[in-house]
Protein backbone atom coordinates (compact mmCIF):
# COMPACT_ATOMS: atom_id res chain seq x y z
CA UNK A 1 0.00 0.00 0.00
CA UNK A 2 1.21 3.46 -0.88
CA UNK A 3 0.48 5.75 1.98
CA UNK A 4 2.97 8.48 1.49
CA UNK A 5 1.25 10.54 -1.15
CA UNK A 6 3.57 9.58 -3.99
CA UNK A 7 2.37 9.95 -7.55
CA UNK A 8 0.81 6.89 -9.15
CA UNK A 9 1.74 6.08 -12.73
CA UNK A 10 -1.67 6.81 -14.24
CA UNK A 11 -1.70 10.46 -13.12
CA UNK A 12 0.29 13.39 -14.37
CA UNK A 13 0.26 15.51 -11.24
CA UNK A 14 -0.47 15.01 -7.54
CA UNK A 15 -3.28 17.51 -7.91
CA UNK A 16 -4.94 15.43 -10.60
CA UNK A 17 -4.53 12.36 -8.40
CA UNK A 18 -6.27 14.14 -5.52
CA UNK A 19 -9.05 15.47 -7.70
CA UNK A 20 -9.70 11.96 -8.93
CA UNK A 21 -10.02 10.66 -5.37
CA UNK A 22 -12.48 13.44 -4.51
CA UNK A 23 -14.43 12.78 -7.69
CA UNK A 24 -14.65 9.05 -6.87
CA UNK A 25 -15.89 9.80 -3.37
CA UNK A 26 -18.58 12.09 -4.75
CA UNK A 27 -19.72 9.46 -7.23
CA UNK A 28 -20.19 7.14 -4.26
CA UNK A 29 -22.03 9.86 -2.34
CA UNK A 30 -24.38 10.36 -5.31
CA UNK A 31 -25.41 6.71 -5.00
CA UNK A 32 -26.00 7.39 -1.31
CA UNK A 33 -28.12 10.45 -2.10
CA UNK A 34 -30.35 8.30 -4.31
CA UNK A 35 -30.37 5.49 -1.74
CA UNK A 36 -31.67 7.78 0.99
CA UNK A 37 -33.77 9.55 -1.66
CA UNK A 38 -35.87 6.40 -2.05
CA UNK A 39 -36.70 6.49 1.65
CA UNK A 40 -37.53 10.18 1.54
CA UNK A 41 -39.78 9.48 -1.41
CA UNK A 42 -41.61 6.70 0.46
CA UNK A 43 -42.01 9.09 3.38
CA UNK A 44 -43.35 11.93 1.20
CA UNK A 45 -45.92 9.76 -0.55
CA UNK A 46 -47.25 8.31 2.70
CA UNK A 47 -47.22 11.67 4.43
CA UNK A 48 -49.25 13.04 1.52
CA UNK A 49 -51.74 10.19 1.86
CA UNK A 50 -52.02 10.01 5.68
CA UNK A 51 -51.10 13.50 6.84
CA UNK A 52 -53.21 13.37 10.01
CA UNK A 53 -51.66 10.17 11.32
CA UNK A 54 -48.16 11.30 10.33
CA UNK A 55 -48.67 14.62 12.12
CA UNK A 56 -49.74 12.88 15.33
CA UNK A 57 -46.82 10.47 15.07
CA UNK A 58 -44.37 13.32 14.52
CA UNK A 59 -45.63 15.21 17.54
CA UNK A 60 -44.90 12.18 19.72
CA UNK A 61 -41.17 12.48 19.06
CA UNK A 62 -39.03 14.26 21.60
CA UNK A 63 -38.32 17.68 20.06
CA UNK A 64 -35.66 18.62 22.65
CA UNK A 65 -33.63 15.45 22.07
CA UNK A 66 -33.99 15.84 18.30
CA UNK A 67 -32.84 19.47 18.34
CA UNK A 68 -29.97 18.66 20.71
CA UNK A 69 -28.86 15.87 18.39
CA UNK A 70 -28.96 18.25 15.42
CA UNK A 71 -26.61 20.62 17.25
CA UNK A 72 -24.30 17.74 18.26
CA UNK A 73 -24.11 16.47 14.69
CA UNK A 74 -23.44 19.89 13.15
CA UNK A 75 -20.75 20.45 15.78
CA UNK A 76 -19.19 17.11 14.80
CA UNK A 77 -19.18 18.31 11.19
CA UNK A 78 -17.26 21.38 12.30
CA UNK A 79 -14.65 19.29 14.14
CA UNK A 80 -14.39 17.02 11.09
CA UNK A 81 -13.82 20.03 8.83
CA UNK A 82 -11.18 21.22 11.30
CA UNK A 83 -9.50 17.80 11.19
CA UNK A 84 -9.26 18.10 7.40
CA UNK A 85 -7.89 21.62 7.76
CA UNK A 86 -5.29 20.42 10.30
CA UNK A 87 -4.22 17.67 7.93
CA UNK A 88 -3.87 19.97 4.91
CA UNK A 89 -1.80 22.41 6.95
CA UNK A 90 0.36 19.59 8.42
CA UNK A 91 -0.68 20.17 12.04
CA UNK A 92 -0.28 16.51 12.87
CA UNK A 93 -1.26 16.45 16.54
CA UNK A 94 -4.33 18.61 15.91
CA UNK A 95 -5.59 16.08 13.32
CA UNK A 96 -5.77 13.37 15.98
CA UNK A 97 -7.44 15.68 18.51
CA UNK A 98 -10.13 16.84 16.08
CA UNK A 99 -10.78 13.29 14.88
CA UNK A 100 -11.23 12.10 18.46
CA UNK A 101 -13.61 15.01 19.14
CA UNK A 102 -15.60 14.06 16.05
CA UNK A 103 -15.80 10.45 17.20
CA UNK A 104 -16.96 11.49 20.68
CA UNK A 105 -19.67 13.75 19.24
CA UNK A 106 -20.77 10.95 16.91
CA UNK A 107 -21.07 8.61 19.89
CA UNK A 108 -23.06 11.23 21.82
CA UNK A 109 -25.47 11.41 18.87
CA UNK A 110 -25.88 7.62 18.84
CA UNK A 111 -26.33 7.59 22.63
CA UNK A 112 -29.14 10.13 22.45
CA UNK A 113 -30.69 8.06 19.65
CA UNK A 114 -30.64 5.00 21.96
CA UNK A 115 -32.44 7.03 24.66
CA UNK A 116 -35.05 8.06 22.11
CA UNK A 117 -35.56 4.50 20.84
CA UNK A 118 -35.95 3.28 24.44
CA UNK A 119 -38.57 5.96 25.01
CA UNK A 120 -40.50 4.79 21.96
CA UNK A 121 -40.29 1.22 23.26
CA UNK A 122 -41.70 2.27 26.63
CA UNK A 123 -44.49 4.18 24.91
CA UNK A 124 -45.46 1.17 22.76
CA UNK A 125 -44.53 2.99 19.57
CA UNK A 126 -42.35 0.25 18.04
CA UNK A 127 -44.26 -1.14 15.00
CA UNK A 128 -45.54 -4.62 15.70
CA UNK A 129 -48.10 -6.45 17.80
CA UNK A 130 -47.74 -4.15 20.78
CA UNK A 131 -47.96 -0.94 18.81
CA UNK A 132 -50.64 1.34 20.20
CA UNK A 133 -50.69 5.02 19.33
CA UNK A 134 -52.97 5.76 22.29
CA UNK A 135 -51.08 3.64 24.84
CA UNK A 136 -49.84 6.70 26.73
CA UNK A 137 -53.24 8.37 26.66
CA UNK A 138 -55.01 5.24 27.87
CA UNK A 139 -52.60 4.46 30.67
CA UNK A 140 -51.74 8.00 31.73
CA UNK A 141 -48.42 6.68 32.94
CA UNK A 142 -45.83 9.09 34.25
CA UNK A 143 -43.14 7.96 31.78
CA UNK A 144 -45.17 9.47 28.95
CA UNK A 145 -45.05 13.05 30.15
CA UNK A 146 -47.03 15.50 32.25
CA UNK A 147 -50.83 15.18 32.53
CA UNK A 148 -51.07 18.41 30.56
CA UNK A 149 -49.08 16.99 27.64
CA UNK A 150 -51.12 13.79 27.75
CA UNK A 151 -54.33 15.82 27.70
CA UNK A 152 -53.19 17.58 24.52
CA UNK A 153 -52.22 14.25 23.02
CA UNK A 154 -55.62 12.78 23.87
CA UNK A 155 -57.54 15.56 22.11
CA UNK A 156 -55.20 15.31 19.16
CA UNK A 157 -55.84 11.57 18.81
CA UNK A 158 -59.58 12.06 19.31
CA UNK A 159 -59.69 14.67 16.55
CA UNK A 160 -57.47 12.50 14.38
CA UNK A 161 -59.78 9.50 14.69
CA UNK A 162 -62.65 11.55 13.28
CA UNK A 163 -60.68 12.27 10.10
CA UNK A 164 -58.91 8.93 9.86
CA UNK A 165 -60.57 5.87 11.43
CA UNK A 166 -57.44 3.81 10.71
CA UNK A 167 -55.28 6.18 12.72
CA UNK A 168 -53.47 3.42 14.60
CA UNK A 169 -52.42 1.60 11.41
CA UNK A 170 -51.37 4.78 9.65
CA UNK A 171 -49.38 6.15 12.56
CA UNK A 172 -47.72 2.74 12.77
CA UNK A 173 -46.67 3.34 9.17
CA UNK A 174 -45.18 6.65 10.29
CA UNK A 175 -43.16 4.92 13.00
CA UNK A 176 -42.03 2.20 10.58
CA UNK A 177 -40.62 4.92 8.34
CA UNK A 178 -39.19 6.75 11.36
CA UNK A 179 -37.27 3.68 12.47
CA UNK A 180 -36.21 2.74 8.95
CA UNK A 181 -34.89 6.23 8.17
CA UNK A 182 -33.26 7.06 11.48
CA UNK A 183 -32.00 3.47 11.73
CA UNK A 184 -30.37 3.67 8.32
CA UNK A 185 -28.91 7.02 9.30
CA UNK A 186 -27.62 5.57 12.58
CA UNK A 187 -26.08 2.65 10.66
CA UNK A 188 -24.20 5.19 8.56
CA UNK A 189 -23.04 6.89 11.75
CA UNK A 190 -21.79 3.57 13.14
CA UNK A 191 -19.87 2.89 9.91
CA UNK A 192 -18.53 6.46 10.11
CA UNK A 193 -17.40 5.86 13.70
CA UNK A 194 -15.51 2.75 12.54
CA UNK A 195 -13.85 4.78 9.77
CA UNK A 196 -12.92 7.45 12.31
CA UNK A 197 -11.26 4.82 14.52
CA UNK A 198 -9.16 3.79 11.51
CA UNK A 199 -8.28 7.44 10.83
CA UNK A 200 -7.36 8.10 14.47
CA UNK A 201 -5.01 5.09 14.46
CA UNK A 202 -3.34 6.38 11.29
CA UNK A 203 -3.26 10.01 12.42
CA UNK A 204 -1.66 9.12 15.76
CA UNK A 205 1.26 7.68 13.76
CA UNK A 206 1.55 11.02 12.02
CA UNK A 207 0.53 9.68 8.60
CA UNK A 208 -1.43 12.72 7.42
CA UNK A 209 0.11 15.98 6.30
CA UNK A 210 -0.13 18.53 3.49
CA UNK A 211 1.12 15.97 0.97
CA UNK A 212 -1.05 13.08 1.95
CA UNK A 213 -4.52 13.51 3.47
CA UNK A 214 -6.90 11.86 1.03
CA UNK A 215 -8.40 9.42 3.60
CA UNK A 216 -9.15 12.28 6.03
CA UNK A 217 -10.73 14.31 3.25
CA UNK A 218 -12.85 11.51 1.83
CA UNK A 219 -14.06 10.17 5.17
CA UNK A 220 -14.75 13.81 6.01
CA UNK A 221 -16.97 14.05 2.92
CA UNK A 222 -18.83 10.93 4.07
CA UNK A 223 -19.30 12.36 7.56
CA UNK A 224 -20.68 15.65 6.22
CA UNK A 225 -23.02 13.72 3.94
CA UNK A 226 -24.45 11.85 6.94
CA UNK A 227 -24.89 15.25 8.60
CA UNK A 228 -26.86 16.50 5.57
CA UNK A 229 -29.19 13.51 5.74
CA UNK A 230 -29.96 14.43 9.35
CA UNK A 231 -30.48 18.09 8.41
CA UNK A 232 -33.43 16.86 6.31
CA UNK A 233 -34.60 14.10 8.67
CA UNK A 234 -34.93 16.47 11.62
CA UNK A 235 -37.52 18.87 10.15
CA UNK A 236 -39.36 16.16 8.22
CA UNK A 237 -39.76 13.77 11.16
CA UNK A 238 -39.86 16.07 14.18
CA UNK A 239 -41.04 19.51 13.14
CA UNK A 240 -43.65 19.66 10.41
CA UNK A 241 -46.78 19.38 12.54
CA UNK A 242 -45.55 20.96 15.77
CA UNK A 243 -47.68 24.07 15.34
CA UNK A 244 -50.81 21.95 15.68
CA UNK A 245 -49.71 20.33 18.92
Amino acid at each position, binding site marked *: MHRTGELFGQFQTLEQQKETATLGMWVFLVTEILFFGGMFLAYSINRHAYSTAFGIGGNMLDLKLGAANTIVLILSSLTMAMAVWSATTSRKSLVTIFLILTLILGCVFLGVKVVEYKQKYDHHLIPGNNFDISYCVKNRSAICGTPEELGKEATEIEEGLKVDPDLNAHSQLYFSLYFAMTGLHALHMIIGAGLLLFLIAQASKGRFDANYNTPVENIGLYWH*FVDIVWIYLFPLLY*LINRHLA
Partner: protein
Amino acid sequence: MTEHIVSPKLYVGIFFSLMVFTLLTVFAATRDFGRWNIVIALVIATFKASLVILFFMHGKYSARRTKLVIVAGFFWLAIMLGLTLADYSTRHAEPSRTQLSNPPSSLQIRS
Protein backbone atom coordinates in the same frame (compact mmCIF):
# COMPACT_ATOMS: atom_id res chain seq x y z
CA MET B 1 -6.07 25.01 -9.87
CA THR B 2 -4.17 24.71 -6.62
CA GLU B 3 -5.75 23.27 -3.53
CA HIS B 4 -7.80 25.75 -1.62
CA ILE B 5 -7.43 25.83 2.13
CA VAL B 6 -10.49 27.18 3.89
CA SER B 7 -9.66 29.15 7.02
CA PRO B 8 -10.94 27.92 10.41
CA LYS B 9 -12.59 31.32 10.84
CA LEU B 10 -14.88 30.62 7.91
CA TYR B 11 -15.66 27.12 9.25
CA VAL B 12 -16.66 28.55 12.62
CA GLY B 13 -18.74 31.22 10.86
CA ILE B 14 -20.54 28.53 8.85
CA PHE B 15 -21.09 26.53 12.02
CA PHE B 16 -22.74 29.48 13.75
CA SER B 17 -24.98 30.24 10.80
CA LEU B 18 -26.00 26.56 10.77
CA MET B 19 -26.87 26.91 14.47
CA VAL B 20 -28.90 30.06 13.83
CA PHE B 21 -30.88 28.36 11.09
CA THR B 22 -31.44 25.29 13.28
CA LEU B 23 -32.96 27.49 15.97
CA LEU B 24 -34.93 29.39 13.32
CA THR B 25 -36.45 26.19 11.90
CA VAL B 26 -37.43 24.97 15.38
CA PHE B 27 -38.98 28.36 16.12
CA ALA B 28 -40.80 28.51 12.76
CA ALA B 29 -42.24 25.05 13.43
CA THR B 30 -44.08 26.29 16.53
CA ARG B 31 -45.89 29.01 14.57
CA ASP B 32 -48.86 28.25 12.37
CA PHE B 33 -48.19 29.20 8.75
CA GLY B 34 -50.72 26.73 7.37
CA ARG B 35 -49.41 24.88 4.34
CA TRP B 36 -46.27 27.05 4.36
CA ASN B 37 -44.85 25.32 7.42
CA ILE B 38 -43.49 22.44 5.38
CA VAL B 39 -42.15 24.80 2.71
CA ILE B 40 -40.32 26.93 5.29
CA ALA B 41 -38.86 23.81 6.95
CA LEU B 42 -37.59 22.44 3.63
CA VAL B 43 -36.20 25.77 2.40
CA ILE B 44 -34.21 26.18 5.63
CA ALA B 45 -33.01 22.56 5.46
CA THR B 46 -31.91 23.03 1.85
CA PHE B 47 -30.09 26.23 2.72
CA LYS B 48 -28.28 24.47 5.58
CA ALA B 49 -27.40 21.51 3.34
CA SER B 50 -26.02 23.92 0.73
CA LEU B 51 -23.78 25.58 3.33
CA VAL B 52 -22.44 22.16 4.35
CA ILE B 53 -21.80 21.11 0.74
CA LEU B 54 -20.25 24.40 -0.38
CA PHE B 55 -17.95 25.02 2.59
CA PHE B 56 -17.53 21.96 4.85
CA MET B 57 -17.36 19.65 1.83
CA HIS B 58 -15.36 22.16 -0.24
CA GLY B 59 -17.94 22.03 -3.04
CA LYS B 60 -17.27 25.68 -3.81
CA TYR B 61 -13.55 25.06 -4.32
CA SER B 62 -13.64 21.70 -6.09
CA ALA B 63 -12.87 20.99 -9.73
CA ARG B 64 -15.61 21.69 -12.26
CA ARG B 65 -15.89 18.00 -13.04
CA THR B 66 -16.60 17.26 -9.37
CA LYS B 67 -19.15 20.08 -9.26
CA LEU B 68 -20.90 18.54 -12.23
CA VAL B 69 -21.17 15.20 -10.40
CA ILE B 70 -22.58 16.90 -7.29
CA VAL B 71 -25.19 18.81 -9.28
CA ALA B 72 -26.03 15.69 -11.31
CA GLY B 73 -26.66 13.73 -8.09
CA PHE B 74 -29.23 16.22 -6.88
CA PHE B 75 -30.67 16.56 -10.38
CA TRP B 76 -31.41 12.84 -10.46
CA LEU B 77 -32.85 13.03 -6.98
CA ALA B 78 -35.10 15.84 -8.19
CA ILE B 79 -36.24 13.70 -11.12
CA MET B 80 -37.07 10.81 -8.80
CA LEU B 81 -38.93 12.94 -6.25
CA GLY B 82 -40.49 15.40 -8.70
CA LEU B 83 -41.92 13.01 -11.24
CA THR B 84 -43.13 10.47 -8.69
CA LEU B 85 -44.78 13.08 -6.50
CA ALA B 86 -46.29 14.79 -9.55
CA ASP B 87 -47.89 11.45 -10.38
CA TYR B 88 -49.14 10.71 -6.87
CA SER B 89 -50.49 14.17 -6.21
CA THR B 90 -52.44 14.41 -9.46
CA ARG B 91 -53.99 10.97 -9.53
CA HIS B 92 -57.64 10.99 -8.69
CA ALA B 93 -58.41 7.68 -10.24
CA GLU B 94 -58.88 5.93 -6.91
CA PRO B 95 -62.52 4.87 -6.75
CA SER B 96 -64.52 6.24 -3.87
CA ARG B 97 -66.17 3.88 -1.40
CA THR B 98 -69.57 4.17 -3.03
CA GLN B 99 -68.11 3.23 -6.37
CA LEU B 100 -66.35 0.29 -4.78
CA SER B 101 -69.52 -1.13 -3.30
CA ASN B 102 -71.20 -1.01 -6.67
CA PRO B 103 -68.55 -1.17 -9.39
CA PRO B 104 -69.48 -0.80 -13.04
CA SER B 105 -69.82 -4.12 -14.77
CA SER B 106 -66.68 -3.51 -16.79
CA LEU B 107 -64.62 -3.47 -13.57
CA GLN B 108 -66.20 -6.51 -11.98
CA ILE B 109 -63.97 -9.48 -11.62
CA ARG B 110 -65.33 -12.51 -13.35
CA SER B 111 -64.54 -15.73 -11.60
